[in-house]
């Protein structure tokens, strides 16, 4: 009996040693639908990174690298994009990945009525299966943004056999981890996909994503060892995390920005001097110290932004250096515009960081003669007001895209879906539309520089800082490299026991 017990115990101990290793990641929000063609949140993309492989990926310098496609080339005056696909890929349900599957996915993303990828793939006219492992995308016109789209959710591949199932709650992809279960607001569990081509490089048996919205609690969970990694640390905790030997602090400047969107359109709310006169907006920019915001609220994580493009992007131009705070110059500009003081209402989505920034800006701008009244709002309500043009100045951000177009076009073109400034300048439209169809980086940059020169003068949006992605891991985690897109790539990441 005793012997039996001992051997049982030994068995338990042994299986314990070989037992599945979990990796737990604390997320700031609960992701939305898990269908890459219908998903919309940033946080959902963190889960997709481990779940669904894409045609191509981006690296830390924002260059495109192979994933499901091994190589790609442009032809036919940049109107055909051809991908060579890997021949050793299977989906989580065992279905083989090939050109037919890739076409089925791209067509699904282009045609499903509620696909959110439609506009991203709008330039694609047809998808052709060239041979078993080659596809060609035929475009209506050249599209410089297409590769970037295909390196994100639009390029994610689902098993065509699972299209008829409930993709939204049970996605079948071909990434290193496969879907196991989800409890909304609680957890998403993935497990290692044994047939993945690089399975040896992924060291965890299960991934558990835990939405923990309160950043203090998220950090406490990491310190208590209940999670192994968290994303989006509250900047106020940066000091204490840096000083903690049990934690690794891994911040990286992201692709997005936070800024002030000013209503400059032709509508009743855009009637104040700040809305009507660009000199007043220029004065406001001079009155606000971006580096002060970085120091006081960002604790060094809010890298000041002058342009919509991230610092890592080749389109971030040296022609537009950071405008430094200059109260005297701001006053002079206001005077020139015929004002002693200018008052306006600043709307912001209510949370601790945004309200701290709004109050700081209010205080700084006051020295130059601005009387800012603050209007904190709940986020969904604020979005609706902005869309309706019912705001004066709003503090809001953008999570950012790899391709420069995603950070500028929709915001300042006359018909842009996100143009909450209601700004409209045919010349800017012309330049940004031209940049869309110009694949050459140098030429494209010239177009963006020209457009930026106009926008920097008219200032429908004042960019304040680049959104950081501060990751923190337990010191037991090694091999994690943060990327500017804020994704968690787990290849080679290890966890000591």
């Amino acid at each position, binding site marked *: 009996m005793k012997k039996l017990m001992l051997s049982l115990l030994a068995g338990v101990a042994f299986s314990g040693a070989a037992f599945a290793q979990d990796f737990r990641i604390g997320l700031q929000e*609960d*992701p*939305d*639908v*898990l*269908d890459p063609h*219908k*998903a*919309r*949140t*940033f946080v959902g993309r963190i889960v997709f990174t481990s779940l669904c492989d894409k045609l191509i990926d981006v690296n830390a310098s924002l260059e495109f690298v192979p994933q499901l496609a091994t190589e790609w080339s442009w032809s036919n005056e940049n109107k055909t994009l051809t991908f060579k696909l890997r021949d050793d890929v299977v989906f989580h349900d065992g279905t083989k990945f090939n050109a037919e599957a890739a076409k089925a996915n791209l067509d699904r993303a282009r045609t499903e*009525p*509620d*696909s*959110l990828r*439609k*506009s*991203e793939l709008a330039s694609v006219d047809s998808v052709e299966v060239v041979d078993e492992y080659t596809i060609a995308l035929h475009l209506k016109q050249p599209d410089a943004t297409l590769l970037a789209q295909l390196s994100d959710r639009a390029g994610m591949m689902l098993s065509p056999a699972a299209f008829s199932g*409930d993709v*939204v*709650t049970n996605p079948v992809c071909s990434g290193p981890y496969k879907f196991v279960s*989800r*409890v*909304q*607001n*609680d*957890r998403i569990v993935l497990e290692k996909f044994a047939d993945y081509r690089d399975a040896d490089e992924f060291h965890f048996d299960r991934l558990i994503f*835990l*939405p*923990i*919205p*309160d950043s*203090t*609690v998220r950090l*406490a*969970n990491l*310190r*208590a*060892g*209940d999670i192994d990694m968290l994303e989006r640390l509250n900047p106020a905790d940066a000091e204490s995390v840096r000083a903690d030997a049990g934690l690794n602090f891994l911040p990286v400047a992201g692709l997005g920005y936070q800024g002030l969107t000013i209503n400059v359109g032709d509508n009743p709310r855009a009637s104040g001097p700040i809305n009507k006169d660009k000199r007043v907006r220029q004065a406001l920019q001079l009155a606000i110290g971006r580096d002060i915001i970085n120091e006081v609220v960002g604790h060094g994580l809010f890298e000041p932004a002058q342009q919509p493009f991230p610092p890592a992007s080749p389109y971030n131009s040296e022609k537009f250096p950071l405008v430094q705070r200059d109260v005297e110059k701001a006053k002079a500009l206001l005077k020139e515009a015929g004002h002693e003081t200018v008052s306006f209402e600043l709307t912001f989505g209510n949370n601790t960081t945004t309200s701290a920034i709004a109050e700081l800006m209010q205080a700084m701008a006051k020295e130059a003669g601005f009387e800012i009244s603050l209007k904190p709002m*709940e*986020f*969904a*309500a604020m*979005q*609706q*007001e902005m*869309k309706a043009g019912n705001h004066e100045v709003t503090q809001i951000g*953008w*999570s950012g895209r790899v391709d420069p177009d995603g950070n500028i076009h*929709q915001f300042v073109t006359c018909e842009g*879906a*996100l143009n909450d400034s209601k700004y409209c300048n045919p010349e800017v439209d012309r330049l940004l539309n031209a940049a869309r169809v110009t694949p050459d980086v140098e030429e494209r940059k010239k177009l963006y520089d020209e457009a930026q020169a106009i926008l920097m003068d008219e200032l429908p949006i004042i960019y304040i800082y680049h959104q950081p992605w501060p990751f923190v891991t337990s010191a037991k985690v090694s091999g994690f490299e943060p990327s500017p897109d804020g994704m968690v790539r787990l290849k080679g990441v290890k966890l000591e026991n």
Partner: protein
Amino acid sequence: MLKIIARRVLVAIPTLFLVSLIVFGLQKLLPGDPLLTMAGEERNPEIIEFLREKYHLNDPFYLQYLYWLRDVLTGDFGNSLRTGVPVSTLIAQKLPVTIQLAVMAMILALLIGIPTGIMSAVKKGKAADYVANAVALSGVSIPNFWLGIIMIMIVSVQWRLLPASGYVPLTEDPVQSIRTMLMPSFVLATALAAYLMRHTRSAMLGVLSSDYIRTARAKGLLPRVVVLKHALRNALMPIITLTTLLFGELLAGAVLTEQVFTIPGFGKLMVDAVFTRDYAVVQGVVLCTAAGFILMNLLADILYILINPRLRHPQ
């Protein structure tokens, strides 16, 4: 008894109907458009229009309500606009969590509240009474989220005794499940115990000064028997009312506590749903908690009858 239950259930139907109508109306009054959240950061107008049609959001208010009512009557609570998961699945996932949290918090609250209430009544005016009152006052005044964070810092981060947050289903690992729920239920129980203590104390004080207690004492019964057997039973009525009402409230979810301890219960589900204007989820959850509340009232009535024989034979 059966008659009472039947009557209660019949009354519940119009109540639930009214609740659903009010909640539906209130949601429509909220500023903000669910489609702006649903259509993603890009807000493609084409997709917004498609979704507006799909979810009947173009129709007048009463039609939208009727669509919803028709589906509910056929047992379909709709799908979450945000995650596509059926609302019935969500409720089935969250209900056990909420019930477990409510039951554990209630047990702790009863274990703390009633004995201290009795003690405080018996020792009225003595040091123990003042201490108990002071503790009760702080139990009510200390905010749950603050107490929760402080407890996580001390118990989980410093001492590493209990998990900081999360939820493990009871069926998966009972011990771990109770360990994770211990801190949140304690936090919730602090305020509840304080209410219970105050009510027990005043009810007991009333009963202890009545004639039959004096008689019982005069008979020479042990003080313990007088207090626990004779007095407590009569003092229980208001405590039962309070307990069932508090429990009904617990079933509606404990928003702040759930948020701090990231417990996937009703409170968190509901708040998230309101913020993303996830109408179907808000409707389903409110209906469910309203039903829970009505059930609790019914339970209170039944308990009265069990405890007070005079109510068993209504004239």
